[in-house]
């Protein structure tokens, strides 16, 4: 399995460290040619306006859309915003997932928080059904989920913080800032489901 991490800006090294712990071959993606031969891509947390602008400037928008049409992509926080169809303000988006997000939905940094979530989908990779301890930093909310997208996790007040649409995954929070690797394993599972077999070595 070879997974790319979009390394334009943000906490990509935290994702890379987690993937290496899971014995995954990792590639940093800064230019379109870095997407070749990947089985999936993670878009990290960071500033979505910065990541979007750099993706436009270096010609990554169309290649990322084509990649996401048939390969797994997971966006955390800024990455989830970037994957969305609509962020309620003009900024470059991949428009791959049928979700609408609200940026900085909880307010400023002082309102950033940690909380335990119930995420039944994680039982695909871990039968324990332990609550998932999630870290939210100036986090977005997923306001609406349409079409094939479905809700994976909600806060107590019902607001949506994780969604999946076939091989695409969006989380408002940051599994890469914790030691819990279940979301990374879920993503690897999703990537393996849509993985195209590479030519076997002769």
């Amino acid at each position, binding site marked *: 399995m070879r997974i790319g991490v979009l390394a334009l800006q*943000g906490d990509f090294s935290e994702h890379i460290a987690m993937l290496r712990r899971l014995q995954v071959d990792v590639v940093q993606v800064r230019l379109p040619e870095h997407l070749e031969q990947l089985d999936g891509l993670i878009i990290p947390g*960071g500033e979505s306006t*910065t990541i979007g602008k*750099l993706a436009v400037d270096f010609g990554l928008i169309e290649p990322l859309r084509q990649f996401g049409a048939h390969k797994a992509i997971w966006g955390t926080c*800024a990455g989830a915003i970037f994957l969305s169809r609509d962020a309620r303000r003009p900024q470059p988006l991949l428009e791959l997932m049928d979700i609408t997000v609200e940026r900085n939905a909880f307010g*400023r940094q*002082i309102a950033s*928080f*940690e909380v335990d979530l119930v995420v039944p989908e994680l039982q695909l990779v871990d039968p324990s059904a332990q609550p998932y301890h999630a*870290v939210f930093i100036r986090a977005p909310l997923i306001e609406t989920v349409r079409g094939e997208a479905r809700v994976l996790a909600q806060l107590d007040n019902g607001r949506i913080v994780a969604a999946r649409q076939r091989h695409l995954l969006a989380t408002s929070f940051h599994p890469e800032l914790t030691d819990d690797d279940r979301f990374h394993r879920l993503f690897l599972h999703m990537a393996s489901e849509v993985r195209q077999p590479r030519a076997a070595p002769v």
Partner: protein
Amino acid sequence: MEQQIATFAVKKGLAQMLKGGVIMDVVTPEHARIAEDAGAVAVMALERVPADIRANGGVARMSDPELILKIMDAVSIPVMAKCRIGHFVEAQILEAIGVDYIDESEVLTPADEAHHINKHTFKVPFVCGCRNLGEALRRIGEGAAMIRTKGEAGTGDVVEAVRHARAVLGEIRRLQAMPEEELMTFSKEIGAPYELVLETRSLGRLPVVNFAAGGIATPADAALMMQLGVDGVFVGSGIFKSGDPARRAAAIVKAVTHYRDPYILAEVSRNLGEPMVGRQISSIPEAELIAGRGW
């Protein structure tokens, strides 16, 4: 399920989101929008950039909250603001207006010549400057959730930023090679909390995000600091004291992403117009240097 706010993970977490990015000094909402459009990950809201503080002299204090609030309204990215070293009431005011990060900064005139703010008691996270590992770990011990090397602000001369980054990163390399029995004496010598020395040694890096600051004026300066091993850069006077701020800001953002690609660095360095004039640090009298503030 109960939500916990203002944990150290959450404070440190915002700095982790800023990594690989450029934080720009801005003095008006218009500047803030230019910075955001250029791809800044955050802005530092100020009344005067360090080059002007240096030129004007006098006592430099926290900016007017009205100005900071206007800048907060103008952009969607995080907004930082500076308080004086040791001035915990300025910090309380900045927390009350809701800034995303406080810089307890040597660029302003210190309010306390012996003590920094106890940053653990605040909900808002703090960034602090350092010139070496001991200073960095003392600030983290006081609760700083992000560190920046100081450099010499407002000069456009990158030499001090390089000196301070090399000092911190070099001391970490030395620490990693040190046998365990020498660690307590090392902690004593650099004046750093022992537990943080142990943590830094096992991580092979500072326990919080570490940016470079002070004198960065060009895309090449920014990429130099990144290649030395920092997580991102602050650019103060270097952008809005230059001939074409929007263009230079965007170029520095690209240089921080592609800091190892000299072809892209060459491309983004072309036609940026006049850089800030700058002052060689060796020409500045000792008493006017500000990096020495902080204890």
